[in-house]
C-alpha cells in the first residue's frame, strides 16, 4: 500500500472506530424522522380536535355559516350581552359577533376569544364574512346564483422551461427552490463539519508531537493530502448512512402513522387562508399533478453529478485551508483568529444564496457568487436547480478546480513549516513568510 494510502486508512479508521462517530451516525437519522413524525402527528391531532371547536355566532345580518372540519358554528338567538355571559361560562372556542351591517360599509365585526387570536384565525373569520358580503354585492348587481358558481375558478400556473434545443420541460419554482435549498445547504454543512475535523486532526497530531515522527517517513504534503482524503471518506460514509437511514426510518414513520402523501398535503392545509380551499380534493389537484410531473422530469443524473463535483471540490478547497490553519496553531483556541477568514467566504456564499440566488438566479450578484471559487460550491448548486447556461457552469467548474489546486498548494506550503513549529505565536505576516520560503 502506498504511504498516502496508509495515512488515508489511519485517518478513516481512527475516526470511524470512535464511539462518538457511531453515536452521531445513528442519532442524527433518528432525530430527523422523529422531528418530522412529531410535527405531522401534532398537525393531525390539531386537525382532529379542530372539529370540536365550537364558535358561538350572534348574527344580526343573517349570513350563512357552514360547519367545516375545524369549526362548528352555533347560532345564538340572543343579544350580544347574553351571549357573552354564556360564552364565558361555556367551553366554546370563540364568539363571533356580526352586527347589522351596511354591505357597502361593513363595520363592527367582532371576535371574542378567551385568548389572543392568531393571525390565521382572525383572517379566517374575516374571509368568511368578506366572501359572503361579496356574494351579496354581486347578487345585488343582478348576478344569479348560477353565474356566481361559475365565477369560482381554480387556476394554477404551468411554467414551461424551454431548453436551447427547443425541448419543453415542465418546471416548478417550488421544486427548484427546494432543490436549490437542499443542495447548497448540504455542501455548506459538509464543508464546515468535515473541514473543521481536518483542522482538529492536524492540531491533535501537532500537540501530540507525533507529527515529526510521521514526517520523517512521509512528506508533509502527502500527510496533509492523506488526512484531507481520509476525513472526506469518513464524511461520505457518514452521509451515505444518513441518507439510507433517514429514508428507511422516514418510511417506517409514515407507515406507523398510516400516512400517505395526501395526508401530508392535507396536514399542510390545516391552516387554509381561504375557506374554499379545502373543498378542492387534493389528490386530484391539477397543481399536484403538474408538480409530480416536474418531479419526474428532473434530470437527476445531471444534478447529482454536478452536486458531487461541487461537493468534493468545495471540500478540497476549504479542507486544505483548514489543514493549514491547524498546522499554524498549537491549540484549538488559537485557531479562532484564522478560522474566521476561512469560513467567511463560505458564509457569504451561503447567505448570498438565500438573498440573491434564490430570488434572482440569473442576476448579476448570483452570477458572480456562482463563478468565484470560494462561494461557487454553494451558490452554483442553488443556481443549477433553476437552470444555468452551460458556459457559466463550465467556467465555474474550471475556476473551482483552479481554486482548490491553488488552496492545496498554499496550504501545503504553510503546513510543512507550521507542523514543526511549537510555541510560536503565528501572525498573518509569519504565514506569508512561510508561503514564500522555498523549503
Amino acid at each position, binding site marked *: 500500500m502506498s504511504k498516502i494510502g496508509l495515512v488515508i486508512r489511519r485517518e478513516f479508521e481512527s475516526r470511524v472506530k470512535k464511539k462518538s462517530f457511531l453515536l452521531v451516525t445513528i442519532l442524527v437519522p433518528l432525530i430527523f424522522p422523529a422531528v418530522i413524525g412529531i410535527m405531522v402527528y401534532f398537525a393531525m391531532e390539531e386537525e382532529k380536535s379542530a372539529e370540536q371547536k365550537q364558535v358561538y355566532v350572534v348574527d344580526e345580518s343573517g349570513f350563512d355559516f357552514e360547519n367545516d372540519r375545524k369549526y362548528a358554528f352555533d347560532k345564538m338567538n340572543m343579544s350580544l350581552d347574553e351571549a357573552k355571559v354564556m360564552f364565558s361560562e361555556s367551553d366554546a372556542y370563540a364568539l363571533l359577533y356580526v352586527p347589522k351591517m351596511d354591505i357597502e360599509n361593513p363595520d363592527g365585526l367582532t371576535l371574542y376569544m378567551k385568548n389572543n387570536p392568531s393571525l390565521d384565525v382572525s383572517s379566517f373569520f374575516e374571509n368568511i364574512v368578506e366572501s359572503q358580503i361579496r356574494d351579496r354585492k354581486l347578487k345585488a348587481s343582478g348576478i344569479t346564483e348560477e353565474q356566481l358558481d361559475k365565477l369560482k375558478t381554480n387556476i394554477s400556473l404551468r411554467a414551461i422551461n424551454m431548453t436551447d434545443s427547443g425541448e419543453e420541460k415542465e418546471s416548478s419554482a417550488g421544486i427548484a427552490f427546494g432543490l436549490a435549498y437542499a443542495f447548497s445547504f448540504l455542501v455548506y454543512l459538509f464543508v464546515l463539519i468535515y473541514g473543521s475535523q481536518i483542522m482538529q486532526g492536524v492540531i491533535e497530531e501537532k500537540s501530540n*508531537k507525533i507529527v515529526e515522527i510521521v514526517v520523517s517517513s512521509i512528506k508533509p504534503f502527502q500527510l496533509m493530502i492523506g488526512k484531507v482524503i481520509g476525513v472526506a471518506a469518513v464524511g461520505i460514509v457518514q452521509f451515505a448512512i444518513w441518507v439510507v437511514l433517514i429514508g428507511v426510518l422516514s418510511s417506517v414513520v409514515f407507515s406507523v402513522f398510516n400516512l400517505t402523501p395526501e395526508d401530508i398535503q392535507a396536514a399542510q392545509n390545516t391552516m387554509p387562508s381561504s375557506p374554499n380551499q379545502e373543498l378542492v380534493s387534493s389528490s386530484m389537484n391539477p397543481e399536484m399533478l403538474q408538480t409530480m410531473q416536474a418531479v419526474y422530469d428532473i434530470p437527476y443524473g445531471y444534478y447529482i453529478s454536478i452536486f458531487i463535483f461541487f461537493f468534493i471540490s468545495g471540500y478540497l478547497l476549504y479542507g486544505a485551508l483548514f489543514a493549514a490553519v491547524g498546522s499554524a496553531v498549537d491549540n484549538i483556541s488559537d485557531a479562532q483568529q484564522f478560522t474566521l477568514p476561512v469560513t467567511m467566504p463560505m458564509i457569504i456564499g451561503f447567505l448570498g444564496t438565500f438573498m440573491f440566488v434564490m430570488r434572482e438566479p440569473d442576476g448579476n450578484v448570483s452570477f458572480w457568487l456562482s463563478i468565484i471559487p470560494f462561494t461557487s460550491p454553494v451558490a452554483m448548486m442553488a443556481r443549477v436547480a433553476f437552470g444555468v447556461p452551460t458556459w457559466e457552469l463550465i467556467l465555474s467548474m474550471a475556476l473551482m478546480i483552479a481554486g482548490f489546486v491553488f488552496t492545496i498548494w498554499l496550504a501545503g506550503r504553510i503546513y510543512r513549516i507550521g507542523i514543526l513549529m511549537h510555541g510560536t505565536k503565528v501572525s498573518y505576516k509569519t504565514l506569508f513568510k512561510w508561503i514564500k520560503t522555498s*523549503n
Partner: protein
Amino acid sequence: MHILTAENLNKTFYQNVALHDLNLAIPKQSIYGLLGPNGAGKSTFIRIVNQIIDADSGLITINGEKLSPKHIGTIGYLPEERGLYKKMKVGEQLLYLAQLKGLSKSDAKKRIKEWLERFEAGDWLGKKVEDLSKGMQQKVQFISTVMHEPELIILDEPFSGFDPINANLIKDEILKLREKGSTIIFSTHRMESVEELCDHIALINKSEKIIEGEKSAIKDEYKSHIFKLAYKGNQLADNGGYQLLSSEQDLNGIHHAKLKLNEGASSSELLRAVLGHDVEIISFHEEIPSISDIFIKLVKDNHLEVEASAQ
C-alpha cells in the same frame, strides 16, 4: 567507511543562519555524539538528514549514495519533540509507523511482538496509548524508532524525556544494536550525559562545527597535561620536568598538588622526578578534561578570535 557524510551544508531561516558550511563524516558502527548548546543547529541538521526539510545547499550521502527518499527506511529517528497518537492502540500505532517506514505488514507484526516481549510488554498490544504510564509510552516510542532495524539511528535529546530506569534500558539496547551493525547518533546539549557512551563526537556552536573526531583523540589533543598528586612529606617545588601550579596541605598533613608537565616531558619522567624528592605518594592521576570543558575552551578561544578579527 562512513555511513553518513555532510558536505558544505547550508541552511538559513529568514536571515537566521542555522547551518553554515557544515561538514561531518560519521563512521559506520560508531556511537556519534553531536554536541552543542541549544540553537546551535543540531536539530536542523537532523531534520535535513531525515528529509523533513531541505538544505539550501550542500550534499548529504548515506553509504556513499546521495540522500534520497529510498533512505527513509535506513534511518530510525527519535525527535526531541516526540509523542504518539493517544487514542490509538499500541499495536495499531506501531504497525502504522512501521509500514510508513516501508516494512511489510507481516514483518512489522512479527517485530512488534518481539520487541514488546523483550520489554516484557507483550500484553500492551491492545491497550490505548493514553492508558499507558509515561514510562511505558517511552518504551513504545523507542520501539517505534528501532523496529525497522535501521542502519542509522538518530536520537535527538534522547535522555531528556526518559526516566533513569528507561534511560539505562535504552542505553543497553542501543549498545546491542551497535553490536549488530547499527550506527547511532546522539544529539544533545547535555554533553556529560552521552560522554561515556560516544566513541566519536562533533561539537557544533552557532551553526558551525568547531571540532570533530574520535573522542579519545580529541581528549588527547586538549589534554591540559596537569596531574594531581597527593603525597606526604616535604613540599615539592618546580623542577625542570614540571611546574607546580598549586599545593595545599590538609588537616592530616597530606599535600594535594597540581603539577603541569613541561613541554616534551612524559608522565613517567614527572613521577621519577617527584620520587626523587623522597615523598610518599598516596595518589597520582592525570586531570582529563571533560567534553564540556573542551567545548567551553574552544568556544572561548573562538570567541576571542572573532573579537580580535573585529578590531
